[in-house]
């Protein structure tokens, strides 16, 4: 018998039917995968299990008995631990306090026992095999560390059911493997795990069962052993995803040099970086995380300063450290961390889509609400952003749709140079293909595109030229046609057996 069962749960937000009549069960000792495109309703299912949203219809059963999950506390009491997709940390408090909030170990007279709390946190981190200082403030933790803290928090609950909404989205290979070991350990002790990820390799290694959702509806639940990636993708998307990479590298005849970077250096981050990007070209910046790629593009755009070197756009030198000048010269940067840098989560969809181009929309210095709405609607339409009303807060959108909205925001400025940092991180196959098609189309229209990407298939499938960085240096420039996984990894790591 299932430990936990969803029975015909439905949930709507205004006009958006986020989840429609979904049923499936989680067995004890089993990792159950849940996949679906961005916006398929996975996180909404999670939030119903967490007691954050109450189902409009249907319900949740534990060991065959219906349970009412009205509040997050109810879910905790029912033995359900949830790792939400969005971080739920308190930036002002210490890591240990974040983990044990409301359940801190206490000593005499109910006083919090800080030493015990610290020890308990250290034990959790030891179990996860990571070194995070429990005493440090949560503010400023890297995304990966934030995720680790979330996982530690869930583990500390000692629950029977663990629900993990894209816990690996920000983790590296080593951390993912450790998390897997921990999840398997939980299963051995009889816990049921619901695991959401966009990475098929993870789903296929870790899960025994796999449920597919599409457009809020349940599609299938099968043992992973009976599935292939192709079938899963087809069910997720509802159609064949024929060409994931719509582009043939080197097919376009590149035009004039639009972006010219010479001798760019910043102490401790990168040194002597020089490259050109021509109109109609997609240039990929490849390399390991931390190689300094994001730092370089941020410096080019002027968000960060640089010590030496120069950046020219269309032959004219950009003043260093001035994003406004870069934007005026036609440069756009879509940042890596869309939650922190790209969008204002509380503002509406339309507001966000037009934040960067308020000036051209203004008439006599006043914003015209109508013009704003029209421009936003136009781009949201072109990018097929799935949202309820244009006035909804962006925070309510799914990850892929947020990414598309960031793109919409920048594309509305009609840039000559588009710089995208990790364009498809954490988004599903269908949306990925759309983003790739879009970038390819923009290059065809003559835009110069710079793409920072850690996904080798994406680099190889999209780029006309591949620049590889290692430890702040440019180590290789490979024509897209001739770049291979081996040659890129070699340049990125400096070793032949880089991928082992």
């Amino acid at each position: 018998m299932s430990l936990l069962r969803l029975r015909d749960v439905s949930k709507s937000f205004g006009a958006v039917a986020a989840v429609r009549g979904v049923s499936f069960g989680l067995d004890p000792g089993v990792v159950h995968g849940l996949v679906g495109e961005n916006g398929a309703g996975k996180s909404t299912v999670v939030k119903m299990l967490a007691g954050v949203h109450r189902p409009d219809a249907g319900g949740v059963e534990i060991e065959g008995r219906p349970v009412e999950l009205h509040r997050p506390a109810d879910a905790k009491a029912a033995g359900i631990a949830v790792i939400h997709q969005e971080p739920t940390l308190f930036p002002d408090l210490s890591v240990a306090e974040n983990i044990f909030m409301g359940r801190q170990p206490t000593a005499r007279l109910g006083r919090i026992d800080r030493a015990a709390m610290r020890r308990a946190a250290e034990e959790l981190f030891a179990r996860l095999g990571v070194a995070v200082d429990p005493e440090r403030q949560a503010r400023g933790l890297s995304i990966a560390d934030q995720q680790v803290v979330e996982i530690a928090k869930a583990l500390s609950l000692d629950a029977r059911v663990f629900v993990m909404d894209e816990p690996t989205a920000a983790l590296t290979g080593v951390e993912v493997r450790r998390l897997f070991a921990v999840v398997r350990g939980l299963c051995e002790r009889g816990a049921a795990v619901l695991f959401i990820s966009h990475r098929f390799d993870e789903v296929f290694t870790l899960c025994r069962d796999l449920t597919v959702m599409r457009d809020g509806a349940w599609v299938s639940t099968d043992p992973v052993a009976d599935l292939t990636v192709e079938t899963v993708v087809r069910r997720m998307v509802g159609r064949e995803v024929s060409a994931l990479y719509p582009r043939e590298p080197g097919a376009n005849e590149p035009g004039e040099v639009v972006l010219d970077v010479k001798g760019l250096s910043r102490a401790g981050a990168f040194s002597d970086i020089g490259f050109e990007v021509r109109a109609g070209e997609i240039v990929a910046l490849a390399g390991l995380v931390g190689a300094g790629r994001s730092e370089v593009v941020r410096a080019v755009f002027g968000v960060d300063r640089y010590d030496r070197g120069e950046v020219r756009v269309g032959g004219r030198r950009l003043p260093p450290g001035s994003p406004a000048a870069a934007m005026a010269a036609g440069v756009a940067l879509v940042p890596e961390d869309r939650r922190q840098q790209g969008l204002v989560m509380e503002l509406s969809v339309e507001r966000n889509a037009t934040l960067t181009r308020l000036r051209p929309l203004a008439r006599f210095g006043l914003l015209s609400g109508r013009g704003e709405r029209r421009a936003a609607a136009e781009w949201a339409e072109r990018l097929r952003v799935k949202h309820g009303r244009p006035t909804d807060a962006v925070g309510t959108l799914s990850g892929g749709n947020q990414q598309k909205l960031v793109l919409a925001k920048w594309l509305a400025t009609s840039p000559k140079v588009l710089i995208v940092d990790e364009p498809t991180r954490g988004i599903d196959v269908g949306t990925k293909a759309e983003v790739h098609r879009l970038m390819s189309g923009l290059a065809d229209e003559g835009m110069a595109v710079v793409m920072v990407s850690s996904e080798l298939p994406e680099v190889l499938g999209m780029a006309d030229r591949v620049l590889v960085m290692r430890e702040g240096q440019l180590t290789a420039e490979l024509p897209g046609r001739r770049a291979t996984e081996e040659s890129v990894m070699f340049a990125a790591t400096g070793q032949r057996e880089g991928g082992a």
Partner: protein
Amino acid sequence: MTALRARRELGVLLALALLVAFTAADNSRFLSSQSIRDVLLSASILVVLAVGQTVVVVTRNIDLSVGSVLGLTAFATGKLFVAAPGTPLVVAVLAGVGLGALCGALNGALIAAARVPALVITLGTLYVLRGVDHSWASGEQINAADLPRSFLDFGTATVLGVPVLALVAAAVLLVVATWLGSYRVGRELYAIGSEPAAARLSGIPVGARVFLAFVVSGALAGLAGVLHAARYGTVDATVGSGMELQVVAAVVVGGVAIFGGSGTAYGAAIGALLLTTIGSSLAVLRVDPFWQQAAVGGLILAAIGLDRALAARTARRAAARSAADAAAGQDAGRRGEREATHGS
């Protein structure tokens, strides 16, 4: 983090020490026990209010009604003694605290029901409660002669040279600071102020906690009202007018972040002490009272500037730290190895 915060409070303490030293250098009488006693006496009431305000401000709210609550309870205390001169002190204190808590509950309930920022609600109750006070008093003033001797003594008595009111304020400070710092509910208040959405997701009963914070703030304002009546003996309907701004100033100067989530009751208390001391030291130095206001204003701006600078530094350090971690933890090709199988 704790070290940094502690340093923030040390900074205010240092400013206080400098101010005292400078004033004493000019006029040694400033350090006489009488003058210290006076400063402590006047600071006690502000400290009690500031401690209550801290409880609210850490939850990313604000209570502007405290001056009016103080005025109302001070007048009510006077009325109580006029009606029943034999009332024991404890009963009077409990009645004041109860009345204040009631006012706080009113604030909390309105905020919960109306879902309007506390700033607006408590601005409303500031005027409403003051109006109630005025119509109740209708021009009447209660004088020291109307109050029992024992109650007035409570306002000026000392134990080993320390004013009893200051001891009461210190006790309140100790209890509330410990509650905020070392008890689950107290920590939840910080969590709420630090990130309200996360607090809700993690199952903290946000509404109930914020309500509680306002009740505590109200109760302490009520206590302050009783203390005020005992100390000054003369109570009319204008008592405590404008006090709320002084309280907020004390809290901000003491390092309690106005956006919630950080700061301690100790800091707020030191802030209150500093503001009171500025008042009397500028008087000793015979500085125009106008400059006194300007000094308080400058202090607030300096405190906010300091907080900004500290926050920026923490952020920079954290960023540097995670960058270093990322570089250290980098083993060759682990990204490539993962992505190679992915999406192909």
